[in-house]
């Protein structure tokens, strides 16, 4: 084992010697497991499920399809997960009940024509709400033209459940990363071990590298643990299907024709990059403040800010930048952010802009951490 490997392993040991944080992480993982499983475990009183061999799978979403939906949801069992039509009903509800003022709440009114009109109306409303430019509207219209209608239905319930879980999982993960890493540098000051470290042969560049890599690996480990805790019950209890379906069968107001599996990969990438960014940010704050509680408090405040503070879409640039944070991109909403960024003559959607932006932020934070670390003992005390 080289000295660097030893330094790295001791950095991990320091991070995981924070017992309360380890307990909190374990509790959070259990919470995610329970929340993900409860939908499948807790079922209400059994209702009669009409005996039918008709499956919604691969059916064209035309009037006949909505007739069958009406037939299968008229027996008080539309909310029963064992109803094979349940995911289709759930999907249709997103469109018909998107806006509570819509007059399509009643199943009796459901038909194919209304479904596609309501979907178009939802997309148009979103376009207006986001103050899209002419070019952006044209971009999405061109995408929409490639989407064949009527849709061919595929059950994407598992994908939708996975998609829903990302934002809450990332919120918890960010807080836990903040707890673990906000002391990575400041605790050396607080424990007064920094002088011992800095006077060692490998106490500068190598220690910084070991701390950074350990912090990043811990961030990714926590992120992966949370992802496994949220995804595993979904994979276990439901059929793993829908990943080859187009994304608009998961999020009906989306004009993205990418496969659901590809979009899940984008979600996972953004989730993991979000974890890395939070890790780097926590370490940066830890260096700047030299007080663990101050760094941790700032991490918490920023997560809360990200969740609750909104910037009106009218303030186009500020609003677009604000909603590019990982927590916002993974927001559990059916109204997707349709604003685009033009890069090298090509329009990029938020799921493409995000990873590029996070990579840049990650590099910037790494440079800032290095500068702050080197400045640390040169500052006047």
């Amino acid at each position: 084992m080289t000295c660097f490997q030893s330094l790295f392993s001791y950095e991990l040991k320091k991070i995981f010697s924070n017992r309360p944080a380890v307990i909190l992480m374990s509790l959070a993982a259990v919470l995610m497991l329970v929340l993900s499983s409860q939908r499948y475990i807790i079922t209400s009183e059994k209702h009669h499920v009409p005996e039918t061999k008709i499956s919604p799978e691969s059916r064209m979403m035309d009037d006949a399809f909505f007739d069958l939906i009406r037939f299968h949801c008229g027996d008080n069992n539309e909310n029963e997960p064992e109803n094979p039509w349940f995911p289709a009903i759930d999907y249709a509800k997103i469109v018909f009940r998107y806006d509570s003022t819509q007059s399509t709440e009643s199943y009796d009114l459901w038909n194919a024509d209304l479904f596609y009109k309501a979907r178009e109306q939802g997309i148009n409303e979103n376009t207006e709400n986001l103050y899209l430019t002419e070019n952006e509207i044209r971009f999405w219209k061109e995408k929409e033209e490639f989407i064949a209608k009527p849709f061919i239905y595929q059950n994407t319930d598992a994908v939708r459940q996975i998609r829903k879980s990302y934002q809450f999982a990332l919120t918890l993960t960010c807080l836990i990363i903040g707890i673990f890493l906000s002391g990575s540098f400041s605790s050396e000051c607080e424990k007064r071990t920094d002088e011992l470290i800095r006077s060692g042969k490998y106490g500068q560049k190598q220690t910084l590298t070991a701390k950074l890599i350990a912090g990043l690996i811990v961030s990714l480990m926590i992120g992966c643990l949370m992802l496994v805790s949220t995804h595993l019950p979904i994979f276990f209890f439901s059929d793993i299907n829908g990943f080859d379906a187009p994304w608009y069968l998961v999020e009906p107001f989306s004009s993205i024709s990418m496969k659901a599996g590809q979009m899940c990969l984008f979600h996972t990438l953004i989730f993991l990059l979000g974890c890395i960014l939070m890790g780097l940010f926590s370490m940066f704050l830890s260096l700047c403040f030299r007080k663990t509680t101050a760094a941790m408090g700032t991490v918490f405040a920023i997560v809360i800010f990200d969740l609750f503070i909104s910037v009106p879409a009218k303030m186009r640039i500020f609003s677009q930048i604000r909603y590019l944070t990982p927590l916002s991109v993974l927001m559990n909403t059916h109204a997707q952010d349709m604003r685009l960024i033009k890069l090298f003559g090509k329009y990029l959607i938020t799921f493409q802009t995000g990873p590029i932006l996070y990579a840049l932020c990650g590099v910037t934070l790494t440079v800032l951490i290095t500068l702050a670390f080197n400045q640390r003992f040169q500052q006047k005390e």
Partner: protein
Amino acid sequence: MELKVDRVTKQYKNKIAVDRLSFCLTPGITGLLGANGAGKTTMLRMICGILTPDSGEISLDGISVKDERYRNILGYLPQDFGYYPEFTGADFLLYLSALKGLDKPAAKQRTEELLDMVGLSDAAKKKIKNYSGGMKQRLGIAQALLNKPKVLILDEPTAGLDPKERVRFRELIADIGKENIVLLSTHIVSDIEHIADFILMMREGRIIRQGIWEEKNGNLEDFYMKEFS
């Protein structure tokens, strides 16, 4: 081997902690005496390369104290330092061995030697949070010696040690000082009175006296008390 401090100055806001200090250290024990706030710790931090002087230079045979080669032969015991409470004594020394560039087998062997030397072999597997103040100080002394330093800087090393341990420590330092540069900062005159080859006295960031303390000069403690009272 010569450690050269050349017109070094360090200022904190309105206070000059170290004011154009110049001296040379060669193998042997140098005692640095001074009252609290004289600038001793600031000086030692600069010699260890962890604090940058505002002006002046510090080097060992032309190698800057910022150089990794210098840190490779440096041993430092800070005055006020801490530990990782969840680490055992052995873990702490193994970690600092890695920081000092010792490979795993060498680190293990040196850790065992030093724990034995400072009388902590029995407590090697105990967590540091369970150590007494004296045990922690002995562990601190052990860590400073991990890499068999050619330059050993000790800031108030006997704080917390009982009289018996102090005597043992003095013998150890006297032995190391035969071939290496040892700079020992203290305000306890008896710590250096009989082992220091060279004395530096600091007041308000300046050296007020430097040289070999000879018997004809009288008692060092009396002189110190007169100067600093």
